[in-house]
């Protein structure tokens, strides 16, 4: 018996007070926060160090015993449910914040650190950790990572995935890997991006580097009462249409309001629907947005409006909202918390349908939801003692998920699939999509030891009736261009030919074939598939030039916040995503990895598969869209992409100042970072020239520009209009790179700029630092050896990628894709149809 042997060996190493095996000690671990499922493990081991976690995983692997990692056990999808016959590795004692570096804006934490602890520790430095699941006072960072947790403030800040910069991971067989570089700018395939949200199936994070943000200078919370959910929903749409991007927009219905009032008594009005809108950011910007929001709300039919910036009052409003799930316990002995997403514009339709279903089943449904991103949380109330009630509640829950899928949404916005929704994953995704997820799992964990039984449905057969659905419908399935693409890949696989996708060829270092590689031209796959301005999402085919997208968005007052480089040169959407390139304007809302929400691509086996979706919040299945960002065309051929887009600032101002020396410039960048300003772009041209771009509603910028000047400590020059635009066009089009130089980008952190300068300047490279130093552009003299740049980046401990210049090995410097990357590639492209990352080495 493998388990018996394992337990005996554990007994030698772990003291009895941390190796729990008696029934009375295991019982409290049988469930997480989804008590509908319970399972008793063979043992629970409370690990006290990173090395112990590694040791436990290796022992499990050696004996073939499955394991489940558990932090605080707050999963609402049964994600940390123990597996029978396996062990639970308790991570809650690994709860130290190892390092908090305010200058770099990062915290390095152990997986058992509770979410809110990070913000508490960071507050002393004027920083915070943005993702805020309702359980943030107790849920752990390790769990947040595994389930890509969201929260009420995702609308502006994004999910966990957008705030994790690096992780050390033990793979299910005990292999150690480092994913991510610690820079906000990823280089190469986003292995970290696909690890986040993998629901524990890819291993256990041992140490996590989190991005901290400056605490907003001002926060305003508005509470508006409405006579109906529909009216509240219309107010949300009107707010978005007005080009306001609140940090959160929440709606609660009367049942949810009553639950909150029974529990924590936040003092909500007793009305059919309540809308909570929060704005945060730089004081003047919030003031301006607040005026516009007031105008929208005052025309929205609200029966009562309260607004506050008082921290205690705000805390009370949020306490009511964040307690709402558990507070429903006051109204009903039992309930199911559902979590699904629909496109924002279909919210009203979805709520009406839920109301109808609720009546049909004779069950009350309380609604609390993140209206801003279409993330519904219907709470189905029932009494388990009533015969048949449990079944009716589950049937209703299932219908609601089918509804979400039917409306083009997702079966989970943030709670994950876990145990609860495994079968629904098969309805949201088509068979090839699911098969690909299985192949990835098998490539990383062939024995299915890590969190066995979660997320992926049991294979059909064995008496289980498959609930397979068609996935999200797409016209691409029968598109002759796609068929031809699949055929080409299959033929290449058969004939042993290597393929290298190409869009417009604006980054020739990445798309020019070497040797017997063959170019796979994707430029014919062009056109916008969907753009609904109110939705703030856009879907387009891979070969669509980003300039074309920018024009279409511009007509609606929207933009691509990641500022795609080489747009004027003709760069395609697929090319930008595959290269993982973001421009100088990525500062405020993140890079291309933060904007991509869905992908369809052809894998190395010639199949068209989908990952992600078209809704901004989606935690269903592996995060394949992230993986394709920066894949450099070497993991598959991207066919279609869905993106988050945002309202564009009406006006821009840029302050350009020459600080004279690198030291003075770095000091100015530090001041700028802690000045509480909302910046769109911050570029440094060494030694001392800094350009800072801000944007906002018309007429609001002069005082804000004054604050930029004050932070820089140098009067500088203010640019407006076409001069202003030209400066950034030049930056983004790489116009500053001298002819005959090849351009590479490298991922850095602000603290390493000085070291980079000391190495790059003597080498004759022309440098430009974007995103306050996270992104370093290097123009390398054509007559210098490319391997010299590789050596420089290795010395800096930074990774890089060639963009222009001759075809060569694309990746540079220290990039530890390691074993994890190799396995993912095996899963996606078993026969290596696509070109390799390392051709020369």
């Amino acid at each position, binding site marked *: 018996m493998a388990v018996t042997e394992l337990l005996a060996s554990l007994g030698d190493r772990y003291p009895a007070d941390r190796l729990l095996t008696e029934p009375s000690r295991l*019982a*409290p671990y049988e*469930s997480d926060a989804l008590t509908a499922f319970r399972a008793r493990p063979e043992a629970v081991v409370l690990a006290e160090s990173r090395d112990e976690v590694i040791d436990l995983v290796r022992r499990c692997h050696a004996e073939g015993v499955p394991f489940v990692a558990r932090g605080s056990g707050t999963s609402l999808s049964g994600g940390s449910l123990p597996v029978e016959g396996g062990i639970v590795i308790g991570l809650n004692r690994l709860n130290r914040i190892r390092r908090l570096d305010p200058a770099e804006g990062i915290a390095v934490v152990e997986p058992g650190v509770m979410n809110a602890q990070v913000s508490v520790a960071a507050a002393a430095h004027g920083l915070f950790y943005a993702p805020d699941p309702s*359980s943030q006072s107790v849920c752990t960072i390790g769990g947040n990572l595994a389930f890509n947790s969201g929260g009420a403030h995702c609308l502006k800040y994004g999910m966990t995935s957008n705030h994790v910069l690096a992780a050390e991971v033990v793979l299910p067989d005990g292999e150690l890997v480092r994913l991510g570089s610690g820079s906000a700018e990823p280089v190469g395939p986003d292995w970290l991006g696909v690890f986040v949200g993998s629901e524990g199936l890819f291993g256990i994070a041992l140490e996590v580097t989190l991005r901290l943000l400056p605490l907003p200078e001002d926060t305003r919370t508005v509470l508006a009462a409405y006579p109906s959910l529909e009216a509240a929903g219309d107010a949300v749409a009107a707010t978005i249409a007005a080009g306001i991007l609140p940090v959160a927009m929440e709606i609660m219905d009367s049942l949810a309001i009553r639950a909150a009032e029974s529990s924590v008594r936040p003092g909500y009005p007793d009305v059919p629907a309540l809308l909570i809108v929060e704005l945060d950011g730089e004081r003047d910007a919030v003031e301006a947005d607040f005026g516009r929001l007031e105008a929208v709300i005052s025309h929205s039919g609200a029966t009562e409006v309260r607004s506050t910036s008082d921290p205690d009052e705000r805390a009370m409003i949020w306490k009511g909202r964040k*307690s709402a799930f558990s507070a429903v*316990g006051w109204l009903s*002995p039992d309930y199911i918390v559902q979590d699904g997403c629909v496109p924002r514009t279909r919210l009203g339709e979805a709520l009406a349908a839920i109301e109808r279903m609720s009546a049909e089943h004779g069950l009350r449904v309380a609604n609390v939801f993140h209206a801003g991103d279409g993330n519904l949380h219907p709470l189905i109330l029932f009494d388990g003692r009533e015969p048949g009630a449990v079944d009716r509640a589950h049937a209703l829950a299932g219908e609601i998920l089918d509804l979400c899928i039917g409306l083009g949404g997702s079966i989970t916005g943030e709670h994950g699939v876990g145990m609860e929704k495994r079968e629904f994953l098969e309805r949201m995704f088509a068979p090839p999509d699911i098969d690909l997820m299985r192949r990835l799992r098998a490539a990383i964990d062939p024995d299915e030891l890590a969190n066995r039984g979660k997320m992926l449905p049991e294979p059909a057969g064995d008496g289980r009736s498959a609930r397979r659905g068609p996935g999200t419908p797409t016209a691409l399935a029968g598109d002759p261009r796609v068929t031809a693409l699949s055929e080409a890949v299959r033929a290449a696989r058969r004939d042993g030919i290597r393929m290298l996708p190409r869009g417009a060829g604006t980054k020739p270092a990445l798309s020019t074939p070497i040797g017997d590689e063959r170019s796979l031209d994707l430029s014919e796959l062009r056109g916008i598939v969907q753009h609904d301005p109110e939705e703030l999402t856009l879907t387009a085919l891979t070969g669509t030039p980003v300039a074309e997208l920018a024009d279409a968005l511009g007509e609606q007052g929207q933009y691509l916040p990641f500022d795609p480089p080489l747009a004027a040169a003709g760069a395609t959407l697929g090319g930008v995503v595959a290269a993982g390139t973001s421009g100088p304007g990525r500062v405020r809302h993140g890079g291309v990895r933060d904007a991509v929400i869905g992908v369809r691509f052809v894998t190395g086996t010639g199949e068209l598969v989908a990952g992600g979706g078209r809704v901004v919040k989606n935690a269903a299945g592996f995060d394949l869209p992230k993986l394709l960002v920066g894949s450099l065309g070497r993991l598959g051929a991207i066919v279609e992409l869905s993106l988050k887009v945002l309202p564009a600032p009406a006006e821009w101002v840029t302050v350009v100042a020459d600080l004279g020396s690198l030291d003075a410039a770095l000091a100015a960048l530090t001041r700028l970072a802690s000045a509480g300003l909302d910046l769109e772009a911050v570029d440094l041209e060494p030694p001392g020239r800094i350009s800072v771009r801000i944007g906002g509603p018309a007429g609001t910028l002069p005082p804000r520009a004054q604050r930029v000047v004050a932070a820089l400590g140098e009067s500088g020059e203010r640019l407006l209009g076409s001069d202003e635009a030209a400066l950034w066009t030049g930056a983004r089009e790489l116009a500053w790179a001298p002819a005959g130089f090849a351009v590479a980008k490298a991922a850095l952190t602000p603290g390493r700029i000085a070291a980079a300068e000391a190495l790059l300047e003597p080498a004759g490279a022309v440098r430009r630092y974007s995103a306050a130093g996270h992104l370093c552009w290097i123009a390398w003299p054509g007559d210098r050896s490319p391997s010299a740049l590789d050596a420089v980046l290795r010395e800096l401990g930074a990774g890089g990628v060639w963009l222009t210049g001759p075809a060569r090995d694309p990746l540079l410097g220290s990039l530890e894709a390691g074993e994890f990357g190799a396995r993912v590639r095996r899963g996606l492209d078993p026969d290596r149809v696509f070109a390799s990352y390392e051709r020369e080495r």
Partner: protein
Amino acid sequence: MQHEIDTERLGPQGEAMAGAVASCVHCGFCLPTCPTYLVMEEEENSPRGRIVLMKEVLEGKLSATEVADPIDNCLGCQACVSACPSGVPYGDLITAYRAHAEEHRERPAGERAQRTLVGATLTRPHRFRIAARLGMLTRGLARFAPARLRPMLGLLPESLPAARPLPPVFEAQGRRRARVALLAGCAQQVLDPEIGWATGRVLARNGVEVVVPADQGCCGSLDMHTGRARQARRLARRTLTAFPGDVDAVITNAAGCGSGMREYPLLFAGQREEAAAEALAARVLDVSVFLDQLGLAEPPPAPERPARIAYHDACHLAHAQGVRAAPRRLLAATGHEVVTPAEPEICCGSAGTYNIERPETAAELGARKAANLIATGADLVAAGNIGCLSQIRTHLPAANGDRIPEVLHTIQVLDRAYGGA
């Protein structure tokens, strides 16, 4: 949480226990506020974990003895009740469960002897005084004492104040605004009789006539909270008859007593005293709440040198009775600065007789509390519970502060502001 508890079998408190289990949704919001989860970091030593264990025992799947350790580790501080969004009445559950389990579990002889000793002395001022004196005399021999006795000796103060029984009545000064009856307390009368006097004086000065019923004794809360329901009922019965019905309120100045008396209805559920218990419980008010509601007749004169007071939330005030603002308002009325230490929701480790039964955990929590209090830079620590005062006094000296703040009952701070005796 679904359960299979057969409530019929469990007597009058069965429904309440099953209801509490059913209302827990296992969300885990209680974990970070539970003192034992903080120091032990085990699910079984969290409120949510204990609820599962109690459920298993009540269902007959585990024995009371098997789960005794984590149940005994619970301080009963009820921080989880404050944190719980689902409104699980954890305090009611654990009190009723402990009474139920007491009859179904085995305790080692030493533990039984200790419980008997505590029960026989602590709640009886006369015996407690003799026992404490005896203990103080023999403290030098502590290392020869049985392990169970040592923590009790360690907790004894350096010296005991002289006995100073309260008068039968404190006459209201000026116009009489109210008439109340005061619970004198048991251990408090031995450890710090001045608290009772200060209570009487401050109330009297604010126009309140305070009667101190002669027949009263221990209110039974200590026994109630440690599973000795029979003993608790005996003491509570006496309290029910000792207190007159014709007063505006029954005043307590020890948080544990106040919350215990408010739990009388559950203690007497299904018994003939239930109605009387409800009537009394409805009139029990902590002195701070009563005085805050009544309003000070005149505020105390402003201090010459305003000091910084760190207010410590006694669990049985803050969590069990929801009293947080009233004592702070009263303290602020003295003209001193009132601050709250970090982790205000975490128990100081006193918790009734917990520091006798679980000395190591109690000491860990005491040190943690002392460090948080010292970090406020306060000149004075105020709290509304004798157990907390003793525990904090014990642990402050080791907290390495520049100076050791004085530790007083909230009402003593007011009494001083008014000029004292």
